[in-house]
């Protein structure tokens, strides 16, 4: 790869201080560092460093969603690929503009937002809305707070929240019944709203008193956001993410745990009744329905917007899990994971404040 390095070295002076294309330096730098790791050396103790860097962390997240991406592609067809492309194009434009104005380097965090965002959208959403949503999410949700590492809200969820509040009708009409054929819809381009009624999500159907099979939800052949339908693939990628320690297991465990416990308690207590008999069945059905699994593994575990402290993570998960249950069962909305996680994002700094306060009080006595 010497020739590539030579080209980069030859092009560098134009982008450096005083060069003609100085303004585009962040873009050049991002490209350069995408191909070749910088040759920075340590200047003092410790003389060695862990190989893990932010690029690697982010690529681990992207690797972990590959099963979900493939499942979405299988069930909803070529259109989903177009959604990813549009998301990256629109989001990168915002991200790159901001880093050029700020004269900072482009952060890798966006690449994760860019892959997660289309996964939480209805598969038949008009592409201009996808672009608008991601631009809004990156601009309001991240850049206004100061970029990666300083954002309070998960940018992907901010984008989705914006879309579902601004275009509720289009969002509701964009659900699609996935392909039930063996070949999936790998070669098909689903066309806008032909059969919007048949595309109702399991949670929407449940509100009308109709509960589908858990097995379908597990495999993913149900209607829903592009990436959230297949529980099996989400768990597969999610467990991988937990194994790599990029996502913290505490958040996932407390969120799913509180969700299961609270749903079960509501059924036993008789506060809610489902057409499905028993306790275990409906609880599993709810766990596999909608975005709770995807939210738990990929959204709530975002290290930037979740609490830093481990104790905080436990409470953060419990708040999100129980809020989801409350929204699903007792409000007009059929799904509440987006709102629950955004609420969790708001609460996260407060949780941290409390936990850190307690820890500092304990530390004060240490001599």
């Amino acid at each position: 790869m010497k020739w590539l390095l030579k080209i980069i070295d030859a092009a560098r002076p134009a982008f450096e201080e005083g060069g003609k294309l100085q303004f585009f330096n962040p873009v050049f730098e991002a490209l350069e560092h995408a191909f070749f790791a910088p040759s920075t050396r340590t200047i003092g103790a410790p003389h060695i460093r862990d190989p893990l860097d932010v690029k690697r962390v982010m690529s681990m997240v992207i690797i972990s969603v590959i099963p979900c991406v493939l499942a979405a592609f299988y069930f909803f067809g070529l259109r989903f690929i177009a959604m990813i492309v549009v998301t990256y194009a629109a989001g990168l434009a915002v991200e790159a503009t901001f880093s050029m104005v700020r004269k900072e380097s482009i952060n890798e965090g966006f690449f994760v937002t860019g892959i997660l965002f289309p996964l939480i959208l209805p598969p038949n959403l008009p592409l201009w809305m996808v672009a608008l949503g991601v631009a809004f999410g990156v601009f309001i949700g991240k850049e206004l707070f100061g970029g990666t590492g300083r954002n309070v809200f998960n940018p992907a969820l901010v984008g989705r929240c914006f879309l579902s509040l601004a275009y509720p009708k289009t969002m509701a009409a964009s659900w699609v019944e996935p392909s039930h054929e063996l070949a999936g819809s790998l070669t098909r381009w689903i066309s806008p709203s032909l059969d919007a009624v048949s595309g109702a999500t399991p949670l929407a159907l449940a509100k009308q008193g109709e509960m589908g099979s858990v097995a379908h939800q597990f495999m993913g052949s149900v209607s829903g956001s592009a990436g959230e339908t297949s529980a099996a693939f989400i768990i597969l990628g999610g467990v991988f993410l937990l194994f790599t320690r990029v996502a913290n297991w505490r958040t996932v465990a407390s969120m799913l745990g509180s969700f299961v416990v609270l749903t079960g308690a509501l059924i036993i207590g008789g506060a809610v009744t489902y057409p499905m008999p028993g306790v275990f069945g409906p609880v599993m059905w709810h766990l596999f329905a909608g975005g709770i699994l995807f939210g738990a593994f990929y959204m709530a575990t975002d290290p930037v917007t979740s609490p830093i402290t481990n104790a905080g993570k436990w409470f953060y998960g419990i708040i999100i899990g129980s809020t989801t249950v409350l929204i699903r069962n007792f409000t007009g909305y059929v799904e509440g994971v987006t709102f629950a996680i955004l609420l969790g994002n708001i609460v996260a700094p407060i949780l941290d404040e409390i936990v850190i306060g307690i820890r500092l009080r304990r530390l004060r006595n240490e001599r």
Partner: protein
Amino acid sequence: MKFKGGYNILLKGRPASTVKAMPEPKSLYLPLYSERFTFTDIRVKDGQKVSGGDILATDPNNHAVPLLAPRAGKVSLKAIENHIVLEDVARLEEHADIAEKELQHVEREMGAAGIKRYKLLSLGAWQFFYDAFTGALPDPLGTPQAVIVSTLSLEPFLTRGDIQLHKRLLNFTRGLEHLQSLLEYQPIYMVMPNISSEFANLIRNQIRGYALVKMLEIPLKYPYDHFAILARRLNLKADGGSVWAVRSEGVLAVDRALTLTKPCTVRIVSIGGIGVNMPTHMKVMPGYPIQKIKENYIFEPAARVINGGILTGRILEADTLGVDTECRGITVLRELHEREFLGFIRPGWSRHSYANCYLSSLRKKFEEKYTTGVRGELRPCISCNFCEEVCPAGIMPHLIHKYLYADLIEEAEQARVDLCVECGLCSYVCPSKIDLRKQLIEAKALIAKEKEEIRQEQLRQKELQKQQEEARKLSEEKAQ
């Protein structure tokens, strides 16, 4: 004992357990600086002939700890800056530099215990002692609240205790007894990797009744052998008096100084890391020419030579010509030259990571070939919490980093930045490549400076008040 955090880095180039005696050098280059000491008070003249054990210089700020001549030779003060050079070095019979008269004088002044302490200091054994909390040289005349003896050296690659103690068990237990004789009822805590091993039983049998030694077992995880951490885990309080801490080499030095009354100058220094052709231990004296060690062991000319361990050592500058008096190991590392192509998506079969983000986490334990590369770009903190997880002191480096970023020094002080033991693990694991260790050290220094300034200011005001009082009294007297 309960420990927090800690992490072992498996690095290739671990020194073998052999100890090699290095050839006698023709000249010795004794550096006037070492980690804790600065020998400014030169006691010899240019061209003077000294014999082994003579005091060449002392450090006036550190209880006059001496720099001893390891061998006989001719002193040259001006040949090389910041070094005392001994030329025409010869291995003659070492003699203790304690004159009979002086001994009698010391005995009159301080009694029998005083002589022992005087011997320890002037024979070079005292420099192996640390104050557990501050890491500084403790007062040789003081009485500690406890003594910590550690046979461990967990930082790669410093001389390990088992190599020091090889075939010297008798000297070690005798050293412990001498140590006990300096104390009254204060306990000696001995930290070992395994307290039920044969070795531990041998020590237990030999010292029975002669020394009050409590053996403690600690896990072999860096940096649990750090004296400040040990002292804190033993529930010793910093305001309850000093805690002496000493490694096995120090106990052996105590034995040599007090039993044989001979100077302790030769020490076992490890040489390890990548870039060393045969990682091992060597027996050298302070001032041993680095060039000679390089010729023998370091085959890569562009390698980085570190005085000390890989995580806390300092780069050995090219103008330092000899091994300093406190050197515990020399570590050699390859400098990073090449830029890696598409590094972040490599499977990583041969690289370690704290997080399991590389294929190597499916592999058995192995030793990695590290270079000095930072291995990534500087990024803002992503709150991954890794630094807190590895921190052995139980503080939150990421929080302190954020406070410092916002210039909130007072908050950083509240977050107990002073508990940091500078082990370097937070910097090592940080995926955003933030040099947390450096930031914490700087914050500590800043806080210490501010505290000192406040203290000085208070003293000045007290002085001022006193003067005013006196002036008032004077004027009153005059008026009368």
